[in-house]
């Protein structure tokens, strides 16, 4: 078993002088969930209704919402209590799920994946609520275990993070990723906001395929908000064949951000992203560009001005030298030369934490039978089937 470290705590008291300005009052904004009458005043059995940030939640009566905790392009998330187990959960409402088939399929992908995944460092999907009518439901309610915050909030907060914090976060991320990769699952969207953490520093990977589509087909848009900062070079360069190494690149970017408390490659768009990467890693030799199968993309990389780059020890002078060494092996431009997750866990920096006997692989590779061309009836059927896994008693009911 791994060696126990000394007890470390971070005070929860807010920094002196960090007085928050009062927020402007927004019309109809609400801090807490509010129990409301059902629409059409017809109350279906087993459901009750709450308004959260002007979003109507139709949820199973065993869940009592507490307050909103997040909002994104996908919908609203609120914390809740499961009255049957006294357990706190996060309920995510995805409204009008069939409005966009690409987004619907991504949600479906997450449902299918999370049903099979069992790992301490991957968020657990505890329930998918059964709608009242199979043929007409529009919204999907997902129930997750509740975590205190995410790594993005931790990184941008002012509290100091010790080398042990950095190491432990990285370790858990790599453990979770090792499990996923052993099941042939690529996350493809790892970033600090998708890593949930608790006050005791437990970390869990979340958001499998829920990133919503941005931009219009056929037009290349810059996106200031939807971040591409954690995307591997082979993705930015439109390579067709990519593998688990894209997640390792993202881990490297996240690790650098934990060390430096700010993003390492905050590109404003795809081309700028590549320039920033080259400005740190330095210009690449021809032999390191052979993985780029798009001739025009390869030409672009070669056309960039020469630079020697900057060593990570200059960027993060306070970091443990072993951390620098590992970071250096993660942020390798050529994916075929990048360290793997297993190799990273075996790196000396992880020696005090990693015990291979405690990390069994997933039982079987998980395969998804998702067809990108399904229409709404088929997608609806597939959602219903996923819900039945959490509510087998509903299979016999006439819906």
């Amino acid at each position, binding site marked *: 078993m791994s060696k126990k470290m000394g007890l470390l705590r971070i005070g929860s008291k807010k920094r002196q002088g960090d007085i928050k300005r009062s927020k402007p009052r927004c019309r109809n904004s609400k801090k807490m969930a509010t129990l409301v009458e059902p629409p059409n005043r017809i109350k279906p059995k087993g459901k009750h209704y709450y308004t959260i940030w002007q979003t109507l939640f139709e949820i199973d009566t065993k869940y009592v919402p507490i307050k909103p905790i997040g909002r994104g392009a996908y919908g609203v998330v609120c914390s809740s209590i499961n009255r049957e187990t006294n357990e706190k959960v996060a309920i995510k409402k995805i409204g009008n799920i069939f409005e966009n088939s690409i987004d619907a399929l991504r949600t479906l992908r997450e449902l299918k994946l999370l049903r099979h995944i069992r790992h301490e460092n991957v968020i657990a999907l505890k329930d998918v609520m059964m709608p009242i009518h199979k043929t007409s439901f529009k919204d999907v309610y997902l129930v997750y275990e509740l975590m205190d915050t995410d790594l993005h909030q931790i990184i941008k907060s002012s509290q100091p993070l010790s080398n042990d914090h950095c190491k432990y976060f990285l370790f858990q991320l790599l453990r979770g990723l090792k499990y996923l990769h052993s099941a042939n699952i690529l996350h493809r969207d790892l970033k600090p906001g998708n890593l949930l953490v608790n006050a005791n520093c*437990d970390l869990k990977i979340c958001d499998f395929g829920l990133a919503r589509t941005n931009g219009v087909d056929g037009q290349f848009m810059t996106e200031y908000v939807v971040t591409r900062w954690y995307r591997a070079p082979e993705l930015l360069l439109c390579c067709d064949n990519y593998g688990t190494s894209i997640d390792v690149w993202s881990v490297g970017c996240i690790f650098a951000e934990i060390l430096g408390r700010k993003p390492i490659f905050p590109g404003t768009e795809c081309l700028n992203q590549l320039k920033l990467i080259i400005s740190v890693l330095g210009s690449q030799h021809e032999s390191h560009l052979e993985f780029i199968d798009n001739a025009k993309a390869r030409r672009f990389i070669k056309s960039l001005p020469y630079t020697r780059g900057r060593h990570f020890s200059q960027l993060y002078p306070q970091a443990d030298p072993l951390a620098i060494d590992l970071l250096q092996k993660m942020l390798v431009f050529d994916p075929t030369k990048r360290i793997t997750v297993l190799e990273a866990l075996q790196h000396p920096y992880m020696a005090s934490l990693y015990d291979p006997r405690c990390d069994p692989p997933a039982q079987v590779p998980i395969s998804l039978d998702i067809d990108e061309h399904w229409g709404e009836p088929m997608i609806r059927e597939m959602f219903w089937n996923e819900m039945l896994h959490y509510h087998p008693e509903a299979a016999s009911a006439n819906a």
Partner: protein
Amino acid sequence: MKKGNLGLGLKLSVPVSDQSNFARFLTESGTFKDGDLLVNRDGVRIVSQNDVEAPPPIKPTDNQLTLADIDVIKVVGKGNGGVVQLVQHKWTSQFFALKVIQMNIEESMRKQIAQELKINQQAQCPYVVVCYQSFYENGVISIILEYMDGGSLADLLKKVKTIPEDYLAAICKQVLKGLVYLHHEKHIIHRDLKPSNLLINHIGEVKITDFGVSAIMESTSGQANTFIGTYNYMSPERINGSQRGYNYKSDIWSLGLILLECALGRFPYAPPDQSETWESIFELIETIVDKPPPIPPSEQFSTEFCSFISACLQKDPKDRLSAQELMAHPFVNMYDDLEVDLSAYFSNAGSPLATL
């Protein structure tokens, strides 16, 4: 394995999560009601006469606006990394557009950015959208802007597909006047000129918006010579980085592409080999950088229009005319005696308050 077994006794304080100031807001019926005023898809109506005189309208120089004094009506669009909402001032009943940008940057930079946005956008020109106030709060930059009720040129194009030359000339003249102001008086490069950043209203005005935002975005990435803006409208020298720093002429290139797109009804560059879509961003930028610029078909368009487009779409920025020089181009003035009515054109293409 037992939960928390490897916990090492490490602890974190959980920061209070930033919450967005503004939710997507829409009344259930889709109508905004405030006293006598009703606003919905069909327009604005005053239900009854109000004897009390309203306070005087807010001017950009007042610096009196606060976010607490405005009511959000609805989201009217998304642009340049932010959400744009129609808002109304509680006391004066004025409508404004509120642009809300989430920014992933260090705390210390945010206040500076809000201030720079205000300075940059304090334009006194009828051809640029007015900025009344900028704020930073809770990780969000909020900018209160003049509300343009016709939406953008991009919205118009979706309806009309192509714009006839005489209307194009009238639109072009207003945009050029805005660019003359930005380039020659304020010394600002827009950097992200595209159809969705040219706003229109029911009285026939065309105004440039979102200038300066890109410059601020640029500074946060910590590098000079970054790319900011839609690739489609980006000039060749910006893409390949062969020019040191930005140049006003980059905006002229974007203007040329916008006008040609309005005339043709499609983005002027087409994927090679009769493809329907671009293979990748790199194919697009190679086309822009290495291939000849697009030209309008001379059998479809006037000599003056073709000449104007050619003057804008010179690949070498030194060969491009400036905004001031273009103001004297024959195309800009050749339809003056027709008294082109943009107000009627915009209104007929979509109802007033088309964005509602």
